[in-house]
């Protein structure tokens, strides 16, 4: 009888486990509120992206067109695939002191893997990750971006 008991137990257990699975899918089928699909182009205005989503590197500028980048190239060194290229220049301050500053902050979006290492490396929090994700363009060259705005200056007090 041991064999028969084992047999019936197997049947009972497998049926129970199958029903458990069906209960789960049945719950989802009847509860449409659980649906996680986003109808993207329609809900563009109300779209809420997760907090840690990383879209592209941007350099925030204040209203008076100032940024926090000192041109230390820490981000350029930190980048694993050469996405960032910083061209520096020497600015002469009113007191006649020469000071290093950025001329152009070149960012290759097409090479970027959104690894966040540059943001971590930046000592002055000059760059950050934006949540924009609609990056498609017609020319590859359009993906090479200059992050500092023309005529922008280093913010006072940032060393």
């Amino acid at each position, binding site marked *: 009888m041991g064999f028969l008991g084992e047999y019936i137990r197997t*049947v009972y257990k497998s049926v129970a486990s*199958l029903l458990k*699975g*069906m209960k789960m*899918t049945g719950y*989802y089928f009847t509860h*449409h509120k*659980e*649906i*996680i699909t986003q109808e993207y182009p329609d809900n563009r205005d109300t779209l809420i992206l997760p907090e840690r989503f990383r879209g592209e590197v941007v350099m925030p500028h204040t209203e008076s067109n100032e940024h926090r980048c000192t041109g230390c190239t820490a981000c350029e060194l930190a980048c694993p695939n050469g996405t960032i290229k910083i061209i520096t220049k020497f600015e002469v301050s009113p007191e006649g002191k020469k000071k290093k500053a950025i001329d152009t902050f070149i960012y290759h979006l097409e090479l970027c893997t959104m690894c966040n290492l540059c943001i971590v490396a930046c000592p002055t929090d000059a760059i950050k990750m934006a949540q924009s994700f609609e990056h498609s363009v017609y020319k590859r060259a359009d993906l090479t971006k200059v992050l500092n705005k023309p005529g922008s200056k280093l913010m006072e007090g940032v060393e």
Partner: protein
Amino acid sequence: MFSIEKISGVVHTWLASHLPARIALLSEFVIVGILMISLFAFLGLVLVFMERKVSAYMQIRLGPNRVGPKGIFQTLADTLKLILKEGLRPTGADKFLFNLAPYIVMMVAMLLMAPIPFARNVQIWDVNIGVLYISAISSISVIGILMAGWSSNNKYSLLGAMRSGAQIVSYELSAGLAILSIVILTGSLRVSDIVASQATGWWIFKGHIPALISFVIFIIAVTAETNRAPFDLAEAESELTAGFHTEYSGMQFALFFLAEYVNIFIVTAIGATLFLGGWMPFHIGGWEAFNHIMDFIPSSIWFFGKTFFLIFIIMWFRWTFPRLRIDQLLNLEWRYLLPIGLFNLLLMTVIGILGWHF
């Protein structure tokens, strides 16, 4: 009240009074044929859409929702695409058999439609061996699959066809035993007799637990016979690309696809007829008022409602369970379904002889 029986009666008397007898009969054949083909097309469209929606909701998705309101024209658009596509044939394929295979599969599905009672007195051919006819004809469809697999000259196709053949041949036994247990209770193979015997209650309720067990066995066996997940290892996408219809494209592929869904409809219709009373409304012996209210719902709605309920259950299986391995598949059949089915048949015979059913 709306009834297919009355409409067909009106058409019949009109044709008989306006045309000579032979031409009237011939035109009735043509009408029935056209109706069947349109039912096929309708089922293909509806079931594919239903499957996509059901699967979407079960996987917390939305499913097709772009073509038409709520995406209801999605399958129509897909069909249009398939019609316009080129039917390719690989070099080295057996041209004759390659082209023949989808039609064999389709023809089997069409032949199986004949004894299905769609509503009260609406049945194409009430053959006296009804249920046996269904088991016999459905065993031909495996030939179409083997033919498609072999003639494609592709290893995936051949492997898929072999798996499918082994599966269909073994699960036919369990389905047959489940059907037999109901035949024991009714004492007739004729489909109309089986439906008529359920006027006082459906067999799944009248036949106690053995009927329930054979119902479960039947559903499992027909899921396997129609090569659907979790028994879809004949076309296991991750291993065999698409199994026996890997090399098919365009309308020939569409025929296989359509045949799969029509076969699901047919087997569930048979299940509904045997276990859930076919077009018979839900009756409880003795409750006259309740029975009378149930009679107001047209019989075709009862039939299609039950059938679609069973189709939904089979879809539920598909989107819940993972695919079985070949040894698990054969283990399930030969170690569980078949012995349980045989024992159940014995139990059913005892119930039938002693008249323990209601």
